[in-house]
C-alpha cells in the first residue's frame, strides 16, 4: 500500500512545503529537528488540520485534494494516530479505551483480534484499570493498541517514545518492532532520535524547516556521508545463520557478523546497527586481535570534518567509519583503497 503526500501550508511562523511517497508497507520515519514540520505533516494526513494546498492519498484512496475540493474528515480517514501524550480517555477503563475505535470501525468487532492485540502488547492485566493509574510506558502501549484496533489503513506515530525515560523506551521498542514485523500496516513514525529511526524504520524522510531535505532507505540514508543522517555507522538486515557456544553468526549480503548469543531461532531476521565510532580501519588484515568481526571492504567515499568519515563498501552493503584525520592520512585512505573494518561492537535489535 503506497501513501502519497503533497502539502503546502503557511503557518504563522513557517511554511510547510513537502512532497513524498512511501511506496510500501513498513515504517517510514519522518525525521528532523523539532520545528521541522513533522507533526504538521501527520496531522494533515490524519485530517486534524487542513492544508492550504495539497493532495494526500492512502493506498489509492484520496483523502485530500484541494484542487478537486476533497477533504475527508478525520473521523472517516481510518488513520490510527498514536499521540506523544497518549491521550487516553480518562473516564473510561483501559478496555473501553481499546474498544473505542474498534466499535466505530466499519467492520464487526472481532474478539480474536482484540485478544491478539491485547496479548501482543501485554495489556491483559491492565484491562480493568483506569488510565490515570497507568505508568507512562503502559499508557503508551494502550494508546498503541487503541489505534491499532480501530483497524486503520495507516498508523501514525508522533514520537511515541519522546515523553518516556530510557527504561520505558526499552519497554515499548520491542512492541513497536513486533508491530512492524507482524502487521502489514504502513506506519509513519515521527522522531528526532537517530537510534529509534535506525532501529525501526525502513524508509526515512528527512524534514528540515518545512521541506524534505532527503529521502531514502534506512540502509542508504544512514550511511551517506553527506546529505543523510549523521551519527550512525550502518544498519544491516541480517539473518541468524547458526548459534555457537556463546556467539551467534549473522549473515548479510556480503559478509558475516559474530555477535554475543542472540536468543532467537536460526533463520530469524534481525536488524543490527553499527556506530561509526565503533568501526576501526586497517590496511592489512589484523591478526591476534580480540575483535570478532573483521570485514574486508573498499573505501567508496570520504569526507573530512572535525574527524574523517570514511564510507566503505562490501558489495551493496555500506558502512561508515569515523576515524581521526591523522589516521586517515597515515593509512593513505582514498576511494578505491582496500581496507579491513574492525567492528568493535554490534547493536542487535532482536525483538522479544
Amino acid at each position, binding site marked *: 500500500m503506497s501513501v502519497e503526500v503533497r502539502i503546502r501550508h503557511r503557518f504563522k511562523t513557517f511554511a510547510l512545503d513537502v512532497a513524498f511517497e512511501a511506496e510500501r508497507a513498513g515504517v517510514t520515519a519522518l525525521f528532523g529537528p523539532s520545528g521541522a514540520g513533522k507533526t504538521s505533516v501527520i496531522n494533515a494526513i490524519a485530517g486534524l488540520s487542513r492544508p492550504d494546498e495539497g493532495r494526500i492519498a492512502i493506498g489509492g484512496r484520496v483523502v485530500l485534494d484541494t484542487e478537486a475540493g476533497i477533504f475527508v474528515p478525520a*473521523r472517516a480517514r481510518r488513520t490510527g*494516530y498514536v499521540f506523544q501524550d497518549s491521550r487516553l480517555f480518562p473516564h473510561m477503563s483501559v478496555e473501553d479505551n481499546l474498544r473505542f475505535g474498534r466499535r466505530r470501525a466499519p467492520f464487526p468487532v472481532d474478539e480474536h483480534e482484540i485478544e491478539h492485540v491485547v496479548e501482543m502488547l501485554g495489556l491483559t492485566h491492565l484491562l480493568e484499570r483506569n488510565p490515570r493509574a497507568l505508568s507512562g510506558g503502559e499508557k503508551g502501549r494502550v494508546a498503541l493498541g487503541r489505534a491499532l484496533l*480501530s483497524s486503520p489503513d495507516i498508523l501514525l506515530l508522533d514520537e511515541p517514545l519522546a515523553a518516556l525515560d530510557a527504561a520505558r523506551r526499552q519497554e515499548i521498542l520491542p512492541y513497536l518492532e513486533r508491530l512492524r514485523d507482524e502487521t502489514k500496516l504502513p506506519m509513519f513514525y515521527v522522531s528526532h532520535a537517530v537510534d529509534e529511526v535506525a532501529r525501526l524504520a525502513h524508509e526515512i524522510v528527512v524534514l528540515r524547516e518545512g521541506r524534505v531535505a532527503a529521502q531514502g532507505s534506512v540502509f542508504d540514508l544512514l550511511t551517506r556521508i553527506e546529505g543523510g543522517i549523521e551519527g550512525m555507522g550502518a544498519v544491516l538486515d541480517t539473518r541468524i545463520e547458526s548459534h555457537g557456544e556463546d556467539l551467534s553468526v549473522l549473515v548479510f549480503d556480503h559478509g558475516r557478523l559474530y555477535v554475543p548469543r542472540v536468543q532467537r531461532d536460526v533463520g530469524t531476521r534481525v536488524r543490527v546497527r553499527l556506530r561509526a565510532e565503533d568501526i576501526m580501519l586497517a590496511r592489512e588484515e589484523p591478526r591476534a586481535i580480540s575483535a570478532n568481526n573483521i570485514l574486508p571492504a573498499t573505501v567508496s567515499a570520504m569526507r573530512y570534518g572535525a574527524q574523517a568519515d570514511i564510507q566503505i563498501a562490501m558489495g551493496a552493503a555500506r558502512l561508515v567509519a569515523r576515524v581521526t584525520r591523522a589516521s586517515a592520512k597515515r593509512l593513505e585512505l582514498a576511494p578505491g583503497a582496500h581496507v579491513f573494518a574492525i567492528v568493535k561492537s554490534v547493536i542487535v535489535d532482536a525483538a522479544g
Partner: protein
Amino acid sequence: MTLWCMPDLLTPDEAQALLLSLRVSFVGVFAALPFAVAAALLLARTRFPGKIVVDGIIHLPLVLPPVAIGFLLLIVLGTRAGLGAFLLQHFGIRFVFSWTGAALTSALITFPFQVRAIRLALEGADPGLDEAARTLGAGWLDRLVNLTLPLALPGIVAGVITAFAASLGEFGAIITFVSNIPGETRTLPLAIYSALQEPGGEAEAARLSLISIALALIFMTLAEAAQRKMRR
C-alpha cells in the same frame, strides 16, 4: 402536607413553603439545564460575530434587578396580551400566579450560574482528547455524548447545585411575576417576608431563615465538592 422528618419543627404552612421552594427550584433548574449546556457549548466551542453580545445577554440576570426581571416576565407572559395570551389561548399554559411561573423565573435567574460552571468545565477539557476521538472514527454527536459531556459532568453537577442553591433564595422576580400565593407561589423567601409582615411573626421568620441557611450551606458544600472533583 407535612414534612415527615420534622413534624414538630414546622407548621404546615412553613412545611408547604419549604416543599414548594424545593419543587420550584428543582423543576426550574432541570428545565434550564439542556439550554444551559447548549449555551455553554456555544460559548466554549464556537466563534461567531456577536458572541460577546450573546455572552452578555446570558449573563444579564446576574446583574439586572430581580424586580425588573419579574416585571419583564409579567409584560411578556401576562395573559392579557402577547406571548402569554397566545400560550393560554392555544395550549392552556399559564405562568402568571402559578408555581410553574415561579419555576420559569428561577430557571431564568439561575441560568448564568449553570452556563458559567459548564462552560468552565468545557474550556478546561483537553482538546487533544477530542482530536483522538476524531481519528478513532467518532462524529460530533458521538463525541458530545461519549466524551465532552461525561468529561464535563463535574462542571455540570456543580452548575446544577449552585443554580439550585441560588434559586432557593430568589425573591424579587418571583413576587413581582407570580405574586405571593400560599401553596402556589409562596416559596421560602416569600414566606419569610410574609411572616415579617405579621405582628409576632419574628419567630416563624427566624425558623424559616435557619432552614434557608442550612439548605444554602448543604448545596454550596456539594457544589464545592463537585468543583474539586473536576479539578483533579
